[in-house]
C-alpha cells in the first residue's frame, strides 16, 4: 500500500505533506496563512522552492524568520491587490478557507496571482457532521472541527459538493482533487463517495478558460 504518508518528512504536518507532493521543483510560492513556515521551509529544502508566506500572528512571523522562510506580516483579509497577476507558480491556502470572510473572492484573487492554486478545507459533508447535525441536532465537533459553534474561527464551512459547485459557477478548473480521512489517508471508498467519507479535501485549481 502506497500513500502520501510514506514519503512524509519528519515533522511536516500531514496535510502539508500532501500539498508538498503537488509542488513542482523550483516553484515560486505564496503561502497564505503560512503558520510557522514549515511547508515553505520543507519546499525550499526539497524542491528548491522560493517565495513568501503571509501570516498575521507575531509568533508565527518569528518562527518563520527562525526557519529561514520569507514571511510577510500581512492580513490576507486586507486584500492581495499588491501581488501582480501570475506572479507565482502556486498560491496555497491550507485549512483556512473556511475562516475567510469571502472565500469566493479570495479564490478569485489566488487564481489571479498564481498559475496554480492549492486549497484545503474540512469537508462538512462527511457523515459524522451530518449525523451530528441531522440526528442529534448539534453542531458537530471532531478532530478536524474541534471548536464549538461559539468559539470556532470557521465561518464558512462547506462540503466537497458545495465547493465544486462554486468552482463550476466561477469556471474554475479543478486540476486535481484529493480527499482523505482524519489520518490524511485516502481509500477506494473515499474516492467513490468523497463527500460522505472524506474529512479533508485538497484541490489544485486553475483559472478556467473562458
Amino acid at each position, binding site marked *: 500500500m502506497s500513500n502520501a504518508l510514506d514519503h512524509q518528512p519528519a515533522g511536516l504536518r500531514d496535510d502539508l505533506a500532501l500539498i508538498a507532493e503537488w509542488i513542482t521543483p523550483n516553484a515560486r510560492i505564496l503561502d497564505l496563512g503560512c503558520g510557522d513556515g514549515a511547508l515553505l521551509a520543507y519546499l525550499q529544502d526539497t524542491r528548491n522552492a522560493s517565495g*513568501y508566506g503571509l501570516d498575521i500572528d507575531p509568533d508565527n512571523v*518569528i518562527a518563520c524568520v*527562525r526557519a529561514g522562510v*520569507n*514571511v*510577510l*506580516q*500581512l492580513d490576507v483579509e486586507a486584500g492581495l491587490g499588491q501581488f501582480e497577476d501570475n506572479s507565482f507558480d502556486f498560491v496555497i491556502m491550507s485549512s483556512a478557507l473556511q475562516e475567510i470572510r469571502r472565500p469566493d473572492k479570495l479564490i478569485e484573487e489566488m487564481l489571479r496571482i498564481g498559475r496554480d492554486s492549492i486549497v484545503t478545507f474540512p469537508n462538512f459533508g462527511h457523515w459524522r457532521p451530518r449525523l451530528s447535525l441531522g440526528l442529534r441536532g448539534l453542531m458537530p465537533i471532531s478532530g478536524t472541527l474541534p471548536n464549538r459553534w461559539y468559539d470556532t474561527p470557521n465561518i464558512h464551512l462547506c462540503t466537497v459538493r458545495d465547493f465544486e459547485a462554486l468552482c463550476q459557477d466561477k469556471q474554475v478548473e479543478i486540476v486535481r482533487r484529493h480527499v482523505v480521512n482524519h489520518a490524511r489517508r485516502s481509500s477506494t471508498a473515499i474516492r467513490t463517495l468523497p463527500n460522505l467519507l472524506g474529512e479533508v479535501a485538497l484541490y489544485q485549481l486553475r483559472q478556467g478558460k473562458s
Partner: protein
Amino acid sequence: MAISDTHSVGLVEPRTLHVAESMPLDCGKPLDRFDLVYETYGTLNADHSNAVLICHALSGNHHAAGYHSADDAKPGWWDKCIGPGKMIDTDRFFVVCPANLGSYAGSTGPESRHPDTGRHYGLDFPVVTVGDWVRSQNILREALEIDQWAAVIGGSLGGMQVMQWAIDYPDRLRHAIVIAAAPKLSAQNIAFNEIARQAIVTDPEFHGGRYYEHDVVPRRGLMLARMLGHITYLSDEAMRAKFGRDLRAGRVNFGFDVEFQVESYLRYQGASFVDRFDANTYLLMTKALDYFDPANTAGGDLATAFAPATARFLVVSFTSDWRFPPARAHEIVDALVDAGKEVSYAEVGSDLGHDDFLLTLPNYVNTLRAYLDRVVAEAGT
C-alpha cells in the same frame, strides 16, 4: 551604574577616518578631504564576515552604545539594542556606527572649518544626500577592510540609508534591515520639515548660518524644530498616557507660561537638544530626508530601483508610528516582492509611535534576534 552592566559595551572611544581624496556628491560639487568619526563595538572575526553597519537617524551620531566616560549620565542612542547579549549582539557581531557627513558630532559638517579658507562651512557645506552618506560609509568599509557587511541596519532616516546601500553597493552587504522607514517622504513629512527649517532660519541669531562667527546659536529656532519633531515621534495615545492633560501647578493660571506637563516635556526636549545639536546640521538632515526617493532615478518605480539589490531584506514597522506608518513600509515590501527580492516583513504592535524603533518591544527584539541568528548561522561566525 549602568556602565558596569554586563550587557553594556562599557567605555568606548570614537575614532576618526581622515579621507584625503575628494568624493563626488550628488549636488555636483565634490567634497575635498573629510573626516568620518565612528565607533565600533565587539570584535571583527578572522575572515571579517561579522561586521554590521549601523546607520543613524536625524538626530543620531556615531555614539550608538556604551559610555564615553564613567560620568556620562546617558549611554549611546541605541544602547538598549546594542551590546553583549542584546538585540544586536556585540558578542557575535563587530558593530560599526559612523556619524554622517554634515553631522554636528565630529564628522565633517557645517561647524567644521573649510581646509582652504579656515572658516566654518556654515551653509556653504554642500547639501548632502542619503546617497552621499552611503558613498562615504563605503569608504569607511574599505578602510576597515570589510569586504561585505553581514548586515546594514538602520531605523527611520537610517533605514533609508540601508535601502540605498542595497541599491548602490549590492555586493557589499548580505542583509538589509530597514526599520520604521519610508521609501520617500510624504508631503506631510516634508511640511513638518519645512516648518522646522523655517523656525531655524528665521531666528534672529541664525545669521545666514554663520552664527558660529557671532558666538551665538539660533536657540529658539532649533528648540522649536526639535519640539515639533518630538510631536511626530510620539503617538497621540502615548502622549495621552504619558501626560494626559496634567497640569504642573495642579490648576490653570490663565497665562502663557508652561502649564500642561506636555508643554514642560517639549520645552525640556527642545532646550536640551540645543545644547548638543547644530542648527545647520538640522537643516541638512531634513533636506536629506526630503530628497530621498530612490524610485525617482528609476522612472518613478521603486521595484525597478531595487532591481540591482541582492541582499535579503527584513523590513519592520510599528503600528502606532504615524510619522512612517505601516502603510509606508508596505510600499517598500510591495516593491521588493515585485522585484522578486528575498524579504520578510514584521509589523510590530506598538503604542509609543515612531520612537519604538529605539526601544525593546518583545516582538520587535525577538524578530530581529531570530533574523540575526540566521545571519550568524549562514556566516559561520
